[in-house]
């Protein structure tokens, strides 16, 4: 719902405002961001197709290489990103209800969980490289490093996006519900792309 958030808007019960917003259908965030999200998903999906086609040609090699990945680390990463997605969804609802302090807290929590994911990802790269699994070691790790680093790049852009959301929420003069929703749409995209990458790199057999 893209109603401009007034500077002096009184805080309402978040649940109540959320229910009211659900009565009328609304576009969450700017349509341009949705066009970007769908386009980006197509690009990554085309890469998944290449990965799966190559994988099925050298099943044994991929399985052997995949054994060096720790599934528990992947699950930890996924839950950290899901927590950040949950926080940003709460941020959108709080901001819509005029509860800006809560919206700010949730925006900061989003960045925090995103950062936990980032640190965990870098540590995993270091571990893999120490084990002798680099970008050129084999086909599997080439795909692994390509997909995880492209995703990480999106995550770093996400930090900038969430930084803008925090900056806008900070001052009553700058608050815009549309901008918060647009930022959240981008952040959720980073999350669901990881859900797909995680499934394809860590668990597929």
């Amino acid at each position, binding site marked *: 719902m893209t109603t401009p958030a007034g500077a002096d808007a009184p805080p309402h019960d978040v649940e109540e405002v*959320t229910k009211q917003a659900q009565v009328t259908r609304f576009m969450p965030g700017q349509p341009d961001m949705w066009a970007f999200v769908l386009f980006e998903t197509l690009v990554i999906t085309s890469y998944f197709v290449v990965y799966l086609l190559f*994988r099925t040609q050298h099943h044994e090699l991929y*399985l052997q290489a995949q054994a060096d990945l720790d599934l528990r680390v992947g699950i930890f990463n996924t839950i950290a990103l899901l*927590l950040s997605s949950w926080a940003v969804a709460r941020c959108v609802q709080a901001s819509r209800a005029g509860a800006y302090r809560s919206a700010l807290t949730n925006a900061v929590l989003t960045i925090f969980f995103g950062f936990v994911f980032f640190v965990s990802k870098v540590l995993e790269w270091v571990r893999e490289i120490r084990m002798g699994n680099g970008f050129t070691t084999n086909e599997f790790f080439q795909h692994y490093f390509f997909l995880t680093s492209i995703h990480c790049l999106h995550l770093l852009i996400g930090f900038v996006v969430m930084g803008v959301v925090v900056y806008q929420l900070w001052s009553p003069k700058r608050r815009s519900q549309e901008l918060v929703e647009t930022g959240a749409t981008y952040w959720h995209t980073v999350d669901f792309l990881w859900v797909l990458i995680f499934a394809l790199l860590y668990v597929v*057999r």
Partner: protein
Amino acid sequence: MSTAFNNRLLVVWALLSAMTLAYLWLDHSADDDGTLRPSTVVTVSVIVIALVKVRIIFREFMEVRHAPALLCRLTDAWVMLIAVCLLGSYFIGQTISN
């Protein structure tokens, strides 16, 4: 100030996390004493679970549930498109290699 959050978001997060943890069980069911084994059942299940998670994120977290019908249909079409691409390339790849 009342911030009684929509519990629905918490339920959604718990469901998505539970589906993520289900991968641990799927992973163990496919392995043989630590050696990874190829398995079409595991592969298809993993892809389907991931797509269900993506659709839940679209509808609940991204608020597509309350969006205009066009966006609902478009995101559903996208999930189907990803499903066809992933499962299609996996099965075509397997047919070629046999």
